[in-house]
């Protein structure tokens, strides 16, 4: 119990608690490129990288542009027996239009387009002032919390695999051509994954709590 008493007596800011298994540690920030890992459950607690902020901002801007472009341009084009049909991602998301299916349409559109887009915008809103050494934006904390809560509901990469499956299903029914949006969406999925890899949540929370003074 002596350890326990020691923890509660010191400044609480010098502690970090594993959110998965509740193990308590004295905080010691790892160097860039190194990781602090919980010894009990192996959850990565802190993983800072050099210039991560700038890279995340660059990737987020690219993703925002790509999402908007990819949802408007034609995505796939199908043709059989002289007839053809081209659709955009927005069309695909909004196919369920009858009765209760409308709810499904809104959900699909949300998972594929709006949630990823919103997350990127929130990330930009939170990170740009921090990276530029300005005081955090108004409500930055709420914005970052919302962005983190949305994370499991951002399903762009799942949609990409869904496309592959759909293509095989249609292949013997008609010929399929890829529109510009198809390639944009491919790049977008990779960028979203890259961005997740760069992001160290703890570092963001810490910099929001202790903004640098100019």
């Amino acid at each position, binding site marked *: 119990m002596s350890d326990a008493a020691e*923890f509660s007596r010191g400044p609480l800011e010098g502690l970090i*608690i594993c*959110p*998965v298994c509740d193990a308590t540690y004295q905080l010691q920030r790892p160097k860039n490129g190194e990781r602090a890992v919980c010894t009990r459950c192996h959850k990565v607690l802190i993983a800072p990288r050099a210039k991560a902020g700038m890279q995340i901002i660059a990737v987020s801007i690219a993703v925002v542009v790509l999402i908007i472009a990819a949802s408007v341009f034609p995505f796939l084009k*199908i043709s059989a027996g002289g007839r053809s049909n081209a659709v955009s991602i927005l069309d695909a998301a909004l196919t369920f239009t009858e009765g209760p299916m409308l709810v*499904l349409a809104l959900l699909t559109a949300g998972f594929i387009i709006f949630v990823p887009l919103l997350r990127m915008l929130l990330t930009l809103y939170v990170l740009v002032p921090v990276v530029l050494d300005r005081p955090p934006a108004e409500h930055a904390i709420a914005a970052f919390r919302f962005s*983190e809560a949305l994370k499991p509901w951002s399903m762009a990469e799942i949609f990409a695999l869904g496309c592959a499956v759909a293509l095989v299903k249609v292949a013997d029914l008609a010929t399929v051509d890829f529109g510009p949006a198809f390639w944009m969406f491919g790049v977008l999925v990779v960028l979203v994954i890259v961005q997740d890899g760069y992001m160290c949540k703890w570092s963001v929370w810490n910099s929001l709590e202790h903004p640098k003074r100019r």
Partner: protein
Amino acid sequence: MELVGTPKKTVTARAAGLVACTRCARAWPLETEVCGRCGAKLISRDVNSLQRVWALWLVGLMCYVPANLYPMLRTQQLFSVDESTIIGGAVELAQHGAFGIATIILVASVVIPLGKFWAIAFLALSVREKGGYASRHRLLMYEVVEYIGRWSMIDIFVVAILSALVQLQGLASITPGPAAFFFALSVIFTMLSAQSFDPRMIWDAQADTDEASGNG
């Protein structure tokens, strides 16, 4: 932590009279209600978490039944109309020789959802009794459930893409069936159920066992 002098024995925040913010990992005195850094609600151990897990789990399971009984896709080709359920569609694909895709569909729409129902139930039951499986295995299971659950949505997206794309007047058209609606709901509710589970309970059960065996 690797980079911190490893304590001989892990001290939980609860034992140290602290409460963790599960969102930003900050430590606060046990009676604090809201995290001063990120504004998340603080609860040392969420006692109602299991009730929420079971309620959402049950709704998810209830939606999964009609998802498999009703047709997922309605394919109209010239004069024939073909309605296929999730499993029926996968079997059809396999008969056409597309075994890879049939496997993806079967894994994403049948194996993963059923595995998830079983895993969440197992975890929720196992934290009540002391001992049994090692925490590390149960945590791995929890992480797999959390990570993989979203991938079940793939079948919904396939239906969405197909129904938007295959609209060739008179030749062929595909429309979604009611199963799509129930399936999406089932995935959403199981995701919520898994999110409600408090993984710290896994470690509490283990710690209690260690203490009991140490005393006895």
